[in-house]
């Protein structure tokens, strides 16, 4: 059993939990994910690692309620336990392959949308620890829905965008990308985009306009998370890849987002997903 040592409600549908999982905490790297199971009846759910502390033996996850099982996770309280918490899974971020010298020259622009902000955090923090302060765009529908902004400000130059203009740039993250790059003339050499699939699709397209190579982190459906089931397959440059072992990060210019979105909704209308099934995130579409 894996105990929840702290819980924070970040917005009505989003919570952050620190989970005691020493083996995962000892091996976790930015970009990786875990598979959790709430209880004996629970589904195996992949969640991106948002932070980790090898000394305390804890791993931080941020979950948004989108269906029955994510709702069940968010109903857990401090002191409760996950039946299973396996990982770290997937390949770490490509940034980790760079040497210190190469890193210092990099100008990475992170683009985070909604619940995708938390998974950007470990990558931005890692860069900051290696002497680079990246730029991070965080987008949300309205300023009540921002998460991880304070944490992010400690490790990055943060640029906020809200659809309703309640804070920061008035518009979508794609508009803020245009603002920073075209109007303010800021220079970047690559873009890491994490958020809802639809937002990643358009942000990757926007980045391509500026000739920026992109990485996107996919949150596909999975069962085992170790390459066995193939539920997470995604077309990347016309080739089928498994998100769990080949990803979760892929070249945003090559991912077939329409297929990925269709596959992500495969069980949306399944009778077991007895939970408001039709709330599509519109924050960045």
């Amino acid at each position, binding site marked *: 059993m894996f105990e929840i040592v702290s819980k924070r409600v970040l917005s009505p549908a989003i919570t952050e939990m620190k989970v005691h999982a020493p083996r995962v905490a000892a091996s976790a790297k930015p970009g990786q994910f875990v598979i959790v199971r709430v209880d004996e009846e629970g*589904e195996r759910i992949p969640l991106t690692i948002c932070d980790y502390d090898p000394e305390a033996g804890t791993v931080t996850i941020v979950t948004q309620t989108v269906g029955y099982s994510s709702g069940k996770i968010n109903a857990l309280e401090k002191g409760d336990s996950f039946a*299973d918490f396996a990982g770290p899974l997937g390949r770490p971020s490509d940034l980790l392959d760079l040497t210190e010298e190469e890193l210092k020259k990099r100008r990475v622009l992170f683009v985070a949308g909604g619940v995708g902000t938390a998974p950007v955090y470990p990558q931005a923090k890692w860069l900051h620890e290696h002497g680079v302060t990246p730029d991070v765009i965080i987008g949300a529908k309205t300023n009540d829905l921002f998460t991880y902004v304070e944490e992010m400000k400690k490790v990055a130059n943060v640029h906020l965008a809200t659809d309703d203009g309640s804070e920061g740039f008035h518009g979508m993250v794609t508009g803020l990308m245009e603002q920073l790059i075209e109007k303010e003339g800021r220079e970047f050499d690559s873009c890491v985009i994490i958020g809802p699939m639809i937002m990643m699709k358009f942000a990757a397209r926007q980045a391509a306009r500026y000739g920026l190579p992109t990485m996107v982190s996919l949150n596909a459906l999975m069962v085992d998370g170790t390459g066995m*089931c193939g539920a997470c397959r995604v077309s990347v440059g016309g080739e089928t890849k498994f998100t769990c*072992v080949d990803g979760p990060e892929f070249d945003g210019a090559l991912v077939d987002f329409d297929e990925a979105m*269709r596959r992500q909704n495969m069980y949306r209308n399944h009778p077991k997903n007895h939970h408001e099934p039709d709330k599509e995130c519109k924050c960045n579409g």
Partner: protein
Amino acid sequence: MANRIPRVPVREQDPKVRATNFEEVCYGYDGDEAVAEAGRCLNCRNPRCVGACPVHVSIPEFIAKVAGGDFAGAAATIARDSSLPSVCGRVCPQESQCEGSCVLGIKQEPVAIGKLERFVGDWAIAHAGEAPAEKPARNGKRVAVVGSGPAGLACASDLAKAGYEVKIFEALHKVGGVLVYGIPEFRLPKEAIVAKEVEAVKRLGVEIETDVVIGRTMTVDDLLDHEGYDAVFVGSGAGLPRFMGIEGENLNGVFSANEFLTRANLMHAFDDKSDTPIIAGRKAVVVGGGNVAMDAVRTAKRLGAEAVIMYRRSEAELPARVEEVHHAKEEGVEFRMLTNPVRILADEAGWVKGLECVEMELGEPDESGRRSPRVKEGSEFTVDCDVVIMALGTSPNPLIKSTTKGLDTNRRGCIVADETGRTSREGVFAGGDAVTGAATVILAMGAGRKAARAIDEYLSAK
């Protein structure tokens, strides 16, 4: 004459009833039936069945004990060579192994060796509680076992008996590997059989930790260099599904047999209490002809779908156990032989709506001796369906290969090991599907036991 007695029939669940539930199909022999069937064995001087058994169980010897009512003795005889008789008695392809070479089979039906083995194994499980736990004295050396499938369980139990401190690391949340995620409940009961076999291994003092993915949570190098293990056995199986590479394979409603079976078997998706969903559709076509294909198609049938097996060769070439094919037909599965899909057709929403297929014909036998299928020109036709399940075989998971220094693998991604299980990396042994590619439970079990002997030799000499 003993050989005039017909084979004792085995009781089974009615096909119409069982096609709607997940309970075990075959009830197995009771004591009287087992004694009667055992009486048919001729106790040949040169028993061909023993030679045909991958682990050379002393078949006539255990059967003679069953015939004499000495079930404990029979269990002890089998235990010399096999640690999973309840499992192997249910899932071994007996018709191409022991029973296939039984002398009685020349003129009539062979002795039901598999059913007798199953009877003995189940008897031993039912009476295990009576024997006190015997934990052997420890020799102070530690071995890590990667994977809790048949190879890992067999290796761990032999090493524990030899005095080693053994810990099994399992990636999934349940113990048993393919026995729990792959083989369905209706063929191999999880609580009554698999869990009991696992308990028996634990009673020997073997520790098992789930949710540890070797290659990610820890590496083989970590186990040897930081966790204090003196040797590692890798029995990580062959879990990676293959697809055909045809158009439409990523449509909604196309699944690997691994995914479909894992949802049903490991996650109990067929049960309303389980949160995990599963989609069998209105009509499910399973592509392939092996045991996994039969398991998938019979699972789809039980979930209420019209269920079809599509195989590119003819029925004679089906690699599945004869019993599974027979059971599938009894349950109402449709068999479309000499047919191959070439394209999966989509509806407007991106879900499967059919399969474009071609008819096949068998050509001359190739080097392997099997007649190779070839497409009949102009034979294209469409099969209506809303679920397609690919059961085309699996290959080993590259996670361990890619994270272990100095561990050689071959072209197919299998770990290279000699016949004792020794790999290119000192202190690392391997066996089962991770070495051979997808094979059988009994071969994996046998490989685990051989590796246990090699590990014992290696560590004794150290």
